[in-house]
């Protein structure tokens, strides 16, 4: 759907709307990266659609000059499904938060993954409900104190990677708003993937859950507590590149034995699943990417298989009779 006319820059994708996120919010970085990626991809504005639910993150479509819909809470993925199935040529992005996408929108999330519809789902995960001012979400940490859990939550969070893989995801990646370069790489991969692409983006909510990701991604910690996944490359990390992820007894461990480092394989489901279970180190990058039958194009093939029929034929088919 790329056109040959002159390429647009990231700026060309801006709208005239005043942006209403808090100063310092992680959402800004995501917005900039997405615009950048759209221009890198050489997308025409009219061929791109952003559909969001409700939440701070879901204000996103107002700020990108493509087609867009700011819909209702939790339904971005369901709506995006219809948009894509009707017109598979569009590049369709569902923008959602950890509340929007995984609490109220959880069912649409897992079913989209099952069907493998070629849309990109970006989950802005700040581990909190931002717009409603600070209640816990399904990704808030066990024990986290929030406005609705004054003594700490008693529910364990989802790991979005595990949930997605359990639902049959063909593409799952994790990245962070604090590293725009990595984020952009991942967004390019997501758009390239034919099937449902889930990109979980750690996004800091400075107001209600500041520094939620410090443990893994803070300046001090990130070298020793995050590892970048690259297909075919060993999972080595650490300030002095001195740590590696290892196969344990059917789980993954961290040690200093660099030469037995696990080689990342985006098609090894069991590896992807275990990566999500690592506790002291957070893998960033594409956990899984496999090619499987895609829903919207299969539907389209069904519709286009034969030449278009006329309803009048149908009305006259089967058993009819004349009255004269």
């Amino acid at each position, binding site marked *: 759907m790329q056109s040959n006319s002159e390429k647009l820059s990231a700026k060309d994708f801006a*709208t005239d*709307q005043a942006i209403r996120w808090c100063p310092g919010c992680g959402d800004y970085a995501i917005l900039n990266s997405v615009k950048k990626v759209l221009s890198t991809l050489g997308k*025409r*504005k*009219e*061929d*791109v*659609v952003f*559909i969001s639910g*409700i939440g701070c993150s879901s204000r996103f*479509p*107002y700020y990108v*000059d*493509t*087609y*867009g*819909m*700011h*819909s*209702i809470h939790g*339904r971005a993925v*369901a*709506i*995006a*499904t*219809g*948009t*894509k*199935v*009707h*017109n598979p*040529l*569009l590049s369709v992005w569902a923008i959602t938060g950890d509340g929007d996408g995984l609490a109220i929108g959880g*069912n*649409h999330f897992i*079913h989209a993954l099952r069907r493998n519809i070629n849309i990109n789902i970006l989950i802005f995960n700040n581990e909190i409900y931002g717009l409603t001012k600070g209640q816990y979400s399904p990704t808030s940490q066990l024990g986290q104190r929030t406005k609705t859990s004054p003594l700490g939550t008693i529910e364990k969070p989802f790991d979005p990677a595990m949930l997605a893989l359990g639902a049959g995801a063909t593409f799952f990646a994790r990245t962070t708003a604090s590293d725009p370069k990595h984020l952009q790489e991942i967004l390019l991969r997501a758009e390239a993937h034919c099937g449902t692409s889930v990109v979980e983006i750690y996004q800091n909510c400075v107001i209600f859950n500041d520094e939620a990701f410090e443990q893994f991604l803070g300046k001090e910690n990130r070298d020793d507590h995050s590892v970048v996944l690259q297909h075919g490359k060993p999972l080595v990390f650490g300030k002095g590149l001195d740590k590696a992820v290892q196969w344990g007894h059917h789980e993954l461990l961290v040690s200093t034995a660099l030469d037995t480092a696990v080689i990342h394989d985006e098609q090894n489901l069991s590896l992807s699943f275990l990566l999500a279970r690592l506790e002291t180190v957070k893998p960033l990058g594409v956990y899984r990417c496999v090619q499987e039958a895609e829903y919207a194009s299969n*539907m389209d093939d*069904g*519709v286009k*298989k*034969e030449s*278009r*029929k*006329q*309803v*009048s034929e*149908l*009305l*006259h088919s*089967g*058993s*009819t*009779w*004349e*009255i*004269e």
Partner: protein
Amino acid sequence: MKTTLEHIIILFSGDSGDGMQLTGTQFSDTSARMGNDIATFPDYPSEIRAPSGSVFGVSGFQVHIGAREIYTPGDQPDVLVAMNPAALKVKLPLLKKGATIIINDDAFDRSGFKKAGYEVSSLEAIGELKNFKLIHAPITSQTERALEAIDLDNKSKRRCKNFYALGLCYFIFSRDPNLTKAWIREKFEGKDALVNANIAALEAGYHFGETIEASISIYQIPEAPLEKGTYRQINGNTGIAWGLMQAAEASGLDLFIGSYPITPATDILQELSKHAGFGVRTFQAEDEIAAICAAIGASFSGALAVTTTSGPGLALKSEALNLAVMLELPLVVINVQRGGPSTGLPTKTEQADLLQVFYGRNGESPVIVLAASRPGDTFAMAFEAARLSLQHMTPVVLLSDGFIANGSEPWRIPDLREEYHHIPIHLAQASEEDFKPYNRNLQLVRPWAIPGTEGMQHRIGGLEKDFETGDVSYDPENQEKMVEVRAKKVSMVASNIPEQQVEGKTHGQLLVISWGGTYGAVRTAVKRLQVQGHEISLVHLTYLNPFPKNLGPLIANFKQVLIPELNKGQLLRIINAQFHCEAKGYHKVQGLPFTISELITAFEKELKLVEYAKQ
């Protein structure tokens, strides 16, 4: 000697496994082709497969055939075919006094009576039967005998007994058995044994009729004076599916249906799922919310988008329907009503979702509301729903019900090039300098700019938006203006729909206002009273929001208004509030349609009151 009848109602009934639906369908098809008008109504058990011979396993199929126009499957059957004691037990109370009952003697043995929960074990012991004419036929055993020579297992042979029963009825009602024979040949092509067996059973039944001719009455029903044309049978759900498909063709759009199965609406989804070749995309969603949301998404990208459901599903869709109202995108919502509240009586009929459709959303959220009246108008009404939604860029809810959905009628196939050929849509003009998504035309309709169209990128959403720019706006006066503009836009649809027709005089004593699937019964009752000289007229509404422009004046022309509904007075509340009148209601909430006779009684009573008040 043959008695000629104007019309007759026959009810085929037996066990779920007895093939009564097929028998009924054949009988009505043949009758239609012989030039009668007909209306039919199947009545399935609510269990998938109940224990054989039990009362909750009884399956019925009612056929009303006539030499004049037929509007309902009829109140009280004139003839009952009872394949087993359970069928007799369940259906006997429905029959007209003096009706004829064709009894499959073989099934009325001790075990049959017991399975049906009868305390007695012989027909003689059932006192009420004295009031009826019984025709005894050993249907099962005769069928077996007739099929002796055919190479088929006994179970399969016994399953042909419904054709024996059909043959007997064909003889009694002077139907041509050849149409069914042709059907059997086609249906079982390549399976000779089955072809032969079923035809043999049919003929045996027919001959049995000849044998007993002397002792029974034989009837004929002349052709009805139907409009010239090509006809077919249609049921309400199929009519809706096809009407939507035609609307897609007429608007040059592809049809998208997002749906989740629910009785009695599922058939629409099932029908549409067969028609990918017509550009139909069927999306069976994970739930009702996803179904309507996917339809909204498809509408955004330029489909004629539809979602189908029944009451509980509509409740789930209400939040998203409200979004569609805000977005001002076309969307057709089909709601096939069933018995409520909650899960209620899912396989029964009711008209109790009207208020939900009008008011079941937060805030001020008007939608266009239409209602189908009979299987034969569903095609037209579905087309109309799509037309209004596309022309006015706003959701339309089309109400049907379980009675219309499963009922069927002969339907004159319209000439699509004449009657349903074109729906103009309101696409944004590429030439527009400064495109604004909520820039309205004189009908207050905004333009539709579909993703993929260059230069018209825009954002829409559920927050209130500025009247001018369409951007999010928290301005108080703007909100009031937008609430009003959405209401006005819907009310202006009144200029794009026909004026209300009146059946009868346009003024007088009593005006009956009805809507939806009660049409046949109400109309018949009103006509009968008109023939008797009463000053009674009928307004049957198919446009419920907005109402036709002339409805208010019409109401004012009558002394009294009476609104019969299969609910506790829902249209009544709306009409009384809107027209400041004191209409009365007549209500029934039993999962069943009105009978003509109860309506006549109610109307007569009301007429008397009006007369009395005059004095």
